[in-house]
């Protein structure tokens, strides 16, 4: 059953499709969760969170699109993992940049704009920069893991991440966001 068929069957609430989905993606989902949780959650917690991801997919099957299934799984896994760590008062990494002025972002338009601007910037970045940023800031992968999977030395990886981050900040600043601290 390919992803398109899985999504179609999930929308019809076919449990078999859910079972196939779990078989196909549980390793991926639990890896996303494990990257974020590190050794701060037990294996049982990781399995519970992974199961939660698939339950959410099941309940929101109407909203699924087959071409973005994997990304949606990753996004849900990411959010649930972060929520769980926050509830347990476990520190998770933050890396902040300052928006130009100090008002709250009350505007729907402004929140929208930042998301759109960000996606536009990321899409236009070089593939290597984009990948390294996504591995670090989306998947919460650490330098040694990124270096291994991208086949580079750890020092080269650190430098590349630093440069990619600076490029992102510079682009955001050009668009009116992100004063350097």
């Amino acid at each position: 059953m390919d992803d398109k068929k899985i999504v179609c069957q999930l929308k019809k609430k076919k449990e078999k499709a859910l079972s196939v989905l779990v078989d196909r993606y549980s390793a991926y989902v639990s890896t996303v969760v494990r990257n974020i949780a590190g050794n701060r959650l037990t294996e049982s917690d990781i399995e519970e969170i992974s199961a939660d991801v698939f339950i959410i997919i099941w309940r929101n099957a109407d909203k699924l699109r087959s071409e973005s299934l994997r990304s949606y799984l990753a996004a849900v896994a990411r959010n649930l993992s972060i929520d769980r760590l926050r509830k347990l008062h476990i520190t998770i990494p933050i890396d902040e940049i300052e928006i130009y002025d100090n008002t709250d972002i009350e505007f729907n338009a402004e929140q929208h704009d930042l998301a759109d601007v960000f996606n536009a910037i990321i899409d236009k970045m070089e593939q290597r920069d984009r990948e390294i940023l996504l591995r670090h800031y989306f998947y919460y992968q650490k330098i040694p893991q990124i270096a291994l999977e991208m086949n580079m030395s750890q020092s080269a990886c650190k430098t590349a991440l630093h440069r990619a981050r600076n490029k992102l900040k510079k682009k955001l600043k050009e668009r009116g966001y992100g004063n350097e601290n």
Partner: protein
Amino acid sequence: MKINLYDIFSDYKGDLPDISEENCNNENINRIVMQRIKKKTVIRKKSRIAIISIAAALTALSGITAVAYSEGFIHFKNILQRTENNPSISRDLPLVNDNNISSMEQNISENHIVFTGDDNLKISTAGMYCDNNTLMIAAEIISDTEIPENSLIIPYFSKIENGLETPLLNKSGFGMTSQIYKGDTPNTYYTSFYITEKDMAGCTIKIQLENIISDSTYDEIQSAIIEEQNKWREDFDFENHTVQEWKAYWKANDFDSRTYDFISDYLENCNKILSGSWTAEIKIPENIVDTITAEKDGFKVTADTLSLTLDGTASISEGKFAVPVITMKDDTVVLTAGTNELEYFIDNGICTDTNYEYFASVFSNVYSYKLPHPVENIADITVYIFGYGENGIEAESHNIYKSEDTK
């Protein structure tokens, strides 16, 4: 205002790189998932029984003659407590559960305010929580027409104070729809509303409900708004201007009103499950229990079980910003902080790297908590003013409140 780069990447919409996948207990995960989807109905009933028990126990403690709570009020409490598992409810909602709901009890009431309007639906409130800055209401809907799962009703709020009615803008423009849940009684449904707004005590909140739509119609409206706003951005040549210029252009063209009008026109003509308009006015009590109010050095704070407000920040010099920090008696520290401010707090012993908790959201000076914090648990409220000079971060502190037993 700071943005966490990790949070920005939550908005990423493109393709993700492949990652090396680690082994997992596939069978276990599959078993958990299958058990849960089959157990769904059973679990809901168990929660309901738990709520009745708590309600009965609390009634006994308060000395009020024991009266069974209505299904609507029980549903209200269920709604409050289902945020943990319901991804469609905003993550801004506080995480209320059996252990901490008792801290909100004093400001929870069962009520039955009837909405007036079209007679194809009968809508009335079933229960609410209100304090100075937060209002959460459950409403019961009786409908002879079947309302499908995942249907949404659209609420508009305004505040009536001293005879003047002011619309309350929600956090995301159009987007504040409320999901409708089927009740156990035939033809009965429930929905709930959650707003934060400063200084609601003694005011009246007017709720106007318009139409019931499907969630796919909602998606359609969202897409239409984005398309319309994209046209405005193209006319403005958004790519070649800064965000500040865009904000000024937005205000000069009153795009808030134009967005509202666009949505209203679209809603008038789109497919609806049920058409209608229903209104009710909710009087917020003058005297909210469980509140701390304190003023010092030109700052004023008001703390309730679910949030804190901070006034007086308009006097802060340009380039500086205020961060309220609440220290609880159990040493939990509730704050909002960027990397540098958090480092400052940790280096100066205000919190450790394990005992702090971020506010769930900040809107119009209302700092909402992630979970209830009874005011009697507050040890200290201090406002920090941060700025950045030649030598890096600069901070001054103003202790606004200290509880009697920590002085």
